[in-house]
């Protein structure tokens, strides 16, 4: 058995990175509150997986969006569950990311050399909020429509550029099917891509700088 493993390892080179991964140094004073960031990552992965499942049946169009949600809830096998799962993991993501921020703050883990990682984390928080906002419109029901109507109309209040910004966000004067497609694209392509880049940077820096230990 050992010989076979050695033969594979000589070609595959799995032992070395594995050792590095499993025998890393963990500083003193690490406790369960350090898992909050990991919990947020788990929520993000759950959102990603349930999101790509929902995208199979969801139709981002003015006439079909609501019907496709009804179909996901009533006809698609376990569709109601995947949809609820997506919704609940988004709530848990917000909660765990906020708690993670508080934890990092309390442990002073934002201090040099980790300032840039704090900035990356803060931007992640902002993008997660934006994802929540764009996702809210997608069911295309009464609540979603008017929440987006109110939410996007806030752009208009910005001096000088407000009018143009509103047009850019809505893709027109009012919230229409164009807005829906815009929000859909933001929700499933633009914002997740930003999140992937930010999270990669976040974890890269955590690995380089190590975990900051207890108080």
């Amino acid at each position: 058995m050992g010989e076979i493993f050695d033969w594979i390892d000589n070609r595959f080179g799995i032992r070395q990175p594995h050792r590095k991964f499993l025998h890393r140094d963990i500083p003193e004073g690490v406790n369960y509150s350090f898992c909050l960031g990991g919990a947020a990552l788990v929520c993000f992965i759950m959102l990603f997986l349930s999101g790509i499942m929902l995208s199979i049946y969801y139709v981002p169009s003015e006439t079909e969006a609501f019907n496709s949600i009804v179909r996901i809830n009533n006809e698609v096998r376990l569709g109601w569950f995947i949809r609820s799962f997506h919704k609940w993991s988004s709530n848990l993501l917000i909660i765990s990311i906020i708690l993670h921020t508080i934890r990092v703050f309390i442990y002073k883990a934002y201090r040099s050399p980790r300032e840039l990682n704090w900035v990356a984390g803060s931007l992640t928080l902002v993008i997660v909020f934006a994802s929540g906002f764009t996702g809210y419109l997608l069911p295309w029901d009464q609540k979603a429509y008017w929440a987006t109507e109110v939410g996007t109309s806030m752009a208009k209040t910005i001096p000088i550029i407000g009018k143009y910004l509103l047009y850019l966000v809505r893709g027109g004067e009012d919230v229409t099917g164009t807005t829906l497609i815009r929000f859909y694209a933001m929700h499933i392509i633009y914002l997740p891509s930003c999140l992937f880049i930010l999270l990669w940077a976040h974890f890269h820096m955590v690995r380089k700088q190590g975990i900051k230990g207890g108080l």
Partner: protein
Amino acid sequence: MKNEEKEFYPDYLAEILLIVFIALEVTIVLALVYPQGIGRQINFSTPYRPLPEWYFLWLYQIVRYFPGRWAFVGTILLPVTAVLILIFIPYIDRGKRGRLKAILAGLILLLSFLIFTLLPALNP
């Protein structure tokens, strides 16, 4: 700074896996017990003020304080300031009493988030 008692493998890895399964289970249980309902179809003739998601309630509340031509204070100025304070926390924590300033800034952010989230939740 090596931790003498516990190793990443297997001690911390087991704890990490525990958290992974707890997060997964909590989500599954919540989704099973409180599934998402279907909303009402859009009716353009009856606009109503919908409540946003709970994590946007703070914004919903502060926007109400600035009507008319000062609306941009609630919609843009205060939220952007809050985000900038959050991002620049490491730079607020500089020099003498840096930590104190950072704690003050952090507390202002956290307390205003909590207060302005609870206000509309308690009396919508």
